[in-house]
């Protein structure tokens, strides 16, 4: 057990322990106890910073399923470190904030349990080197996100939002799994580092591009890229700390992580460049454009997160050009885009986390997040106003805050890419800086909206009636720490660059030597360059558009409501539900007779069909043992009983005749010296008969069937076919010679399994896995019957909730 594995496991262990001490602990203490975990993990991780900055990496393998190449390999390098610091750092602040945000009347133990589950899963994603383990943790983050979004599960919107996010992210995850399997098929390894090592062999294979697309699908759905972003605004139904943590700082960045991690593999492809850059830019614009029209503060922040994720994504796309060009003094300049992406990743977590917490405070203290009902809160919530102001300035890209630095670098990267003449950048490359600039204007506008509509202007009278006041100190600590970082990073960006970003850069570009261009010196002032004019333009045009918003806001109504992505998503979901329901209803019609027909017909078709096509049937009566008279007697008894069964007039006769059949079979087992089978058959037969007798009171009186001759005829034919198929199989297998008999193996049972009774050694040893699972199935079946009978849907209305 190494520290890295422990870091992943500790949150899970804690999550498992919460229910145990929950009852003994006063409710208000749970949060404090839980807070210990991320804080200590964060501190442990910070001790790695100097060593990782020196270029060390840490890898440990726990052999899990070596025969399938699935091993629990942790790999801690610069890229993992950034993310793990964000996960534990923001995690600590969010838990601290939640202690004050959530009322102790809520089911806090569930909340913290899910949150820890998420934290462990997310750490697992960024630490795993094995694709399968990464995938498992990846889906676990979706599951914990689902649980957290639906935390207030009595609300319909929460449940719908949770389901939507689950549907979209898990579908993307499954696509990603297929992509991983393709990578495995091409490279023969599940280790990401080994795949990166063999990238030259892999990139020429035909599956390479499909694998690329599928992996990107996983990343895009998780990171809410257009057109999959629709789940993120709905996920805002979660409690605000969750939105701050999962849906802005960490989980949605898993896709970013994946793209950065796979840049060394796929980065050289033109498809990768245009998909990542294009989708990123489109998302950047679409998110910012839609944020402006929202009236819920959290919805604005949700779309803004979508937009910022697009920004980071497009930067990673721009940076991938360097992989294509290979290392040279002229190409290394393009790695600066990736540097900016990682830089903005951290910056975004700081200012967006603070902004979400700010919205949480407003919601908590005022009781609404609707900007149409807010206004003038500056005097009531002065500290919160400070948070909002600094956060929004940073998000809009204004100095002296960290967002300014990364925004400038973003502009610089978009401008420098237009100089390239590959990937047909020369023809449409000019669109890159143009879209980036337009999107930034909208970013500026919604930042202005957040600040001015909430905090400036006149206070609405109905707010004053509630006598609002500033949030408790506890709720202010976390956002103020983040705001402090926003300012600190602006003044000391190069410390961050040298210790945190530089090692991450060498993870993204493993073949590049660490040069000055790889970790550029970040200046707040770098002369009159295009990016500075772009920022000035953003501010001027942004202010102008904000001033005259009344006049152009109508353009949002131009888009038909019917064709929004959400409407399309709803239509696809409802229509697929309807179609599957109608198909299912067509054959699951509740008629037991029909079900029997399905089973028997498919049995006959498959088994008899196989026998016929393979010409497997062979029966030589001379090889069979002679039939004795007493055996014939038993056969006649059975024939008589089964014929009588068909014509039985009452159920009790039928049950007894059925019993006759069963006991006769038991006799056969005795004759053929299979005492185990005979015993089992006898006991089972007795128990079944008893069961029948108990069930009698539920069964209707046996009535002559009122079915047509045709139905009777077809039923008869099916029964005869089934009977003859079984008989023929029985005759054919006696002296079957196509395959070698496996029974030789079991004859050695005493030596292999320490038992003289072959039947039992098969059950308990050779095929113990079957037995074990059968036992489990038996229990499930028993419980199924129990619940069906005992817990009959007493409340019919609850069925669909």
């Amino acid at each position, binding site marked *: 057990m190494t520290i890295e594995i422990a870091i992943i496991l500790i949150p899970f262990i804690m999550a498992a322990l919460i229910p145990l001490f929950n009852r003994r602990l006063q409710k208000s203490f749970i949060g404090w106890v839980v807070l210990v975990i991320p804080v200590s993990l964060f501190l442990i991780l910070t001790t790695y910073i100097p060593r990782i900055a020196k270029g060390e990496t840490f890898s440990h393998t726990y052999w899990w399923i070596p025969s399938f190449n699935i091993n629990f390999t942790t790999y801690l390098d610069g890229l993992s470190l950034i993310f793990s610091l964000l996960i534990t750092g923001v995690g600590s602040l969010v838990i601290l904030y939640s202690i004050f945000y959530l009322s102790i009347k809520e089911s806090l133990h569930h909340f913290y349990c899910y949150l820890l589950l998420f934290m462990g899963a997310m750490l697992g994603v960024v630490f795993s080197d094995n694709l399968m383990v990464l995938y498992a943790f990846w889906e676990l983050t979706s599951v914990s996100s689902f649980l957290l979004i639906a935390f207030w599960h009595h609300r319909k919107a929460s449940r719908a939002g949770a389901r939507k996010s689950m549907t979209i992210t898990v579908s993307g995850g499954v696509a990603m799994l297929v992509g991983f399997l393709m990578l495995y098929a091409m490279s023969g390894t599940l280790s990401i580092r080994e795949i990166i090592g063999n990238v030259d062999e892999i990139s020429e294979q035909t599956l390479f591009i499909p694998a690329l697309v599928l992996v990107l699908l996983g990343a895009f759905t998780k990171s809410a890229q257009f057109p999959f972003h629709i789940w993120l605004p709905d996920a805002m139904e979660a409690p605000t700390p969750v939105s701050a943590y999962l849906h802005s700082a960490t989980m949605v960045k898993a896709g970013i992580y994946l793209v950065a991690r796979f840049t060394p593999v796929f980065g050289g492809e033109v498809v990768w460049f245009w998909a990542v850059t294009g989708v990123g830019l489109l998302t950047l614009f679409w998110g910012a454009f839609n944020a402006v029209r929202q009236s819920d503060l959290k919805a604005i922040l949700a779309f803004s997160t979508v937009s910022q994720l697009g920004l980071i994504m497009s930067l990673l796309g721009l940076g991938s050009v360097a992989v294509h060009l290979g290392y040279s003094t002229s190409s290394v300049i393009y790695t600066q885009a990736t540097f900016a992406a990682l830089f903005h990743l951290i910056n975004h977590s700081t200012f967006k986390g603070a902004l979400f917490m700010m919205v949480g405070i407003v919601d908590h203290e005022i009781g609404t997040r609707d900007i149409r009902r807010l206004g003038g809160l500056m005097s009531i919530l002065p500290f919160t106003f400070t948070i909002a102001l600094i956060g929004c300035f940073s998000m809009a890209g204004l100095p002296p805050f960290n967002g300014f630095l990364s925004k400038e670098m973003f502009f610089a990267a978009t401008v420098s890419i237009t100089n390239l003449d590959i990937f047909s950048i020369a023809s449409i490359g000019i669109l890159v800086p143009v879209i980036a600039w337009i999107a930034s204007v909208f970013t500026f506008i919604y930042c202005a909206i957040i600040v001015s509509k909430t905090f400036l202007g006149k206070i609405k009278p109905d707010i004053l009636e509630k006598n609002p006041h500033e949030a408790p100190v506890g709720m202010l600590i976390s956002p103020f720490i983040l705001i402090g970082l926003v300012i600190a990073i602006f003044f000391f960006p190069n410390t961050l660059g040298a210790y945190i970003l530089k090692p991450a850069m060498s993870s993204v570009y493993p073949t590049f030597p660490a040069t000055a261009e790889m970790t550029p010196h970040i200046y707040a002032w770098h002369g009159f360059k295009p990016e500075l004019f772009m920022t000035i333009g953003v501010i001027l045009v942004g202010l102008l558009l904000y001033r005259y918003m009344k006049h152009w806001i109508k353009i949002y109504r131009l888009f038909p409501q019917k064709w929004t992505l959400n409407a399309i998503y709803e239509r696809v979901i409802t229509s697929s539900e309807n179609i599957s329901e109608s198909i299912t209803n067509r054959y699951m019609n509740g008629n037991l007779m029909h079900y029997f027909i399905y089973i028997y017909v498919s049995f006959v078709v498959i088994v008899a069909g196989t026998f016929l096509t393979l010409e497997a049937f062979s029966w030589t009566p001379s090889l069979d043992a002679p039939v004795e008279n007493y055996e014939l007697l038993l056969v006649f008894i059975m024939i008589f009983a089964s014929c009588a069964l068909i014509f039985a007039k009452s159920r009790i006769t039928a049950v007894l005749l059925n019993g006759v059949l069963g006991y006769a079979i038991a006799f056969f087992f005795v004759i053929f010296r299979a*005492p*185990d089978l005979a*015993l*089992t058959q006898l*006991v*089972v037969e*007795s*128990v079944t008969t*008893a*069961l029948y007798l*108990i*069930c009698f009171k539920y069964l209707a009186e046996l009535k002559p069937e009122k079915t047509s001759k045709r139905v009777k005829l077809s039923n008869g034919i099916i029964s005869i076919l089934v009977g003859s198929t079984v008989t023929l199989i029985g005759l054919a297998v006696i002296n079957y010679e196509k395959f070698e008999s496996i029974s030789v193996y079991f004859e050695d049972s005493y030596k292999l*399994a*320490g*038992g*003289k*009774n072959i*039947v*039992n*050694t098969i*059950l*308990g*040893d050779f095929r*113990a*896995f079957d*037995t*074990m699972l059968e*036992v*489990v199935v*038996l*229990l499930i*079946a*028993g*419980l199924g*019957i*129990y619940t069906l*009978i*005992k817990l009959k849907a007493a409340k019919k209305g609850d069925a669909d909730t």
Partner: protein
Amino acid sequence: MKINDVILRTVVKGVVFIILTLGVYLFFSGHNAPGGGFIGGLVLGSGIVLLYITYDLETVHRKMPFDFKKVAALGVLLATGSAIGAIFFDAPFLSQTDIYYTFPILGEKHLTTVTIFEAGVALTVIGTLVTIILSISEDE
């Protein structure tokens, strides 16, 4: 209407004892002779069911205050637990082992860990069987 079932009750008193003994015997004779967890469990279960059929639920429940759902769950726990247990001895999942041990009075006996597994099977069978029959017969 009260059914006069004196004969049944008297017979069952003796027979159940025999059935349960047979069940235990079958369970232990498992590995080298006909028997084992499944059959042993079935016989024991049917003995208990016979008791329930003959006497009313409350009477039997007073004498045997088990929740048979829990018995079944315990069985599954034993079966899977004995399977997982092997991992801690660095052996593959579901590995079993056995020794010969000479007891003071009983003499040399064959002890094997598969007995734990089989006990799990038996308990699950008993639990499930009785649960099913009880829940059907209790239903109004």
